[in-house]
């Protein structure tokens, strides 16, 4: 029916929200939008890699690297805002490429653990080179030319919209075919002429660069960075909670999931902040509940719901092979 119409208008609404909130929104709205957009970037980025069959357990590596790249470029060379973001994009892409090269044919859990190891390794480097990074006590961004909160908020909005556009463009390109084929069966995909390493490198570079961008904008937003939180596993986890909650391997799923994750996170944090431990307890339980009862994510849940309704109204006959398992 007019599902397409609904989804297009939702996309447009989201896009406007991301780009107009910094202009017109109240401080609370600006803040929530900023964090949502940040998570959108990370979630879409994570989902891009997952779509090619590469499950990352180290997305914080990109995020943290982006943050440090921005702060180093700005503090040491006075790099202006936009240029520092570009630097982070490049740094993330290089790390992504490197990851693709060292992981080679690794798949599944081995790839995931390697990404985790890369993230932890970068954290150790950040901790152990205090002269460069400020070490564990962290470092402040000291810009000569702070572009203003509005610009930073806007940058995150643009980053989110841009990341979604990249994901959309990929979904309409030949790359989409290669990634899905690799995810389904990397061996068989080769027989169709797909060179897995090439596409692996492409997707890790793209995914890594946008995740780094999120880290860079966050640094400009918060003005402070330290290794424990830049390379926090929590970042990795939220950037995969969001797509899985929303609907993995889809375009809209990570975005839906990012919105839901941010809202649930805020609700539990503000609603239960006065009880020690309660907010993350509830968050954990919600996570468990979602995995158990919404295995296809919010998107899948909605689709199933609509499907069931249309089935009931049309009372379609059971398919012929219903007898099989």
């Amino acid at each position, binding site marked *: 029916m007019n599902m397409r119409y609904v989804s297009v208008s939702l996309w447009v609404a989201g896009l406007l929200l991301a780009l107009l909130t910094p202009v017109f929104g109240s401080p609370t709205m600006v803040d929530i939008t900023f964090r949502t957009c940040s998570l959108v970037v990370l979630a879409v980025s994570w989902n891009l890699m*997952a779509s090619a069959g590469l*499950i990352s*357990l180290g997305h914080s590596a990109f995020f943290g690297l982006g943050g440090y790249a921005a702060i180093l470029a700005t503090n040491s060379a006075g790099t202006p805002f936009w240029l520092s973001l570009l630097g982070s994009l490049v740094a993330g892409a290089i790390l992504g490429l490197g990851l693709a090269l*060292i*992981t*080679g*044919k*690794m798949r*599944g*859990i*081995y790839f995931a*653990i*390697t990404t*985790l*190891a*890369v993230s*932890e*390794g970068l954290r*150790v*480097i950040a*901790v*152990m080179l205090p002269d460069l990074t400020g070490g564990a006590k962290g470092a402040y961004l000291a810009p000569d030319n702070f572009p203003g909160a509005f610009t930073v908020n806007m940058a995150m909005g643009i980053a989110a919209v841009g990341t979604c556009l990249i994901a959309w463009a990929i979904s309409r390109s030949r790359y989409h075919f290669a990634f899905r084929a690799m995810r389904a069966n990397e061996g068989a995909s080769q027989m169709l002429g797909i060179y897995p390493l090439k596409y692996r490198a492409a997707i890790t570079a793209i995914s890594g660069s946008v995740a780094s961008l999120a880290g860079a904008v966050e640094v400009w937003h918060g003005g402070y960075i330290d290794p424990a939180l830049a390379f926090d*596993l929590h970042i990795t*986890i939220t950037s*995969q*909670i969001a797509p*899985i909650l929303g609907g*993995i391997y889809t375009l809209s799923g990570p975005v839906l999931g990012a919105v839901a994750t941010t809202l649930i996170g805020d609700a539990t944090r503000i609603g239960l902040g006065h*009880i*020690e*431990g*309660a907010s*993350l*307890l509830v*968050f*954990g*339980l*919600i*996570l*468990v509940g979602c*995995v*158990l009862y919404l*295995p296809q994510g919010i998107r899948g849940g909605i689709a199933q719901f609509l499907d069931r309704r249309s089935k009931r109204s049309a009372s379609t006959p059971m398919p012929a092979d219903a007898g099989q398992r």
Partner: protein
Amino acid sequence: MDLIPQAFSDAVLLAGLYTLMAVGLSLGFGVVRIINFAHGEMIMLGAYGAFWLFTLFGVDPLISLPALIVVGYVVGWLLFKGFIAKVLDAPHINQILLTFGLGLAIQHIAIILWTGNARSATPVYATSSFLIGDVLVVHGRLVAFAVAVVMVAALIAWLRWSETGLATRAVAENRAAATLMGVDVRRIYALSFGVSCALGVATGVVVSFILTITPFMGFPMLVKAIAIVILGGLGSIPGTVIGALVLAFAETFASYYLPEGSGWAEGIAFVLIIGILILRPRGILGEAVET
């Protein structure tokens, strides 16, 4: 003074602890094929259990160990029946998220019950030591090592000689063939998940008097345990022992012989993991199990 004997002794004792830390995770993966991201929380629960029994009732951790192992088994069994069993056929990533969510919840239940204060049990042997020549051996570490050896030996013996242990290995090697032998695979899953959690709890008990207990102590240990399990090859118990030895020796010798080595030690471990995975994409002894 020659530090090599001391370094060697430190590394071996640490390897014992690391083995115990990782062996439960390894068993859980080998049989159920799930990496339990709440394994660290089992360690944490074990540590709190031993701590409270020691502090409130004066029960020595070594005496409470058997009872806590049973509790750990039951908790693991319940977690399996209540949650894990429902995602056995789900994608890996969903399973990871489920166990991560469980871990997060358990962590914060611990905060609500016991606050976030740091604690540690203080039996006498935790801080006494003796010398063999120039080599200093801390009783507490030796105790932990002994417990680790006994537990791992018991696990291996159980897997090798008991009827159920054999069935467990059969399931790990070939689910379908095990079913054809009359083995109830689901029951073995629940059982080995329980044993895996019991081993986590046992780890917690022995670190309760060596390390600091907080609701967050589990996660860094989990990361380390995953590293060891991957190093050794997923699901292989001898591999886990080798992985623990490699990691303990690398860390200890780096700490002794590199400038600021203690700080870099962890980084070395991760470089090692990446290196070994590049050379042997399935870990050192990783042939036995396919993923």
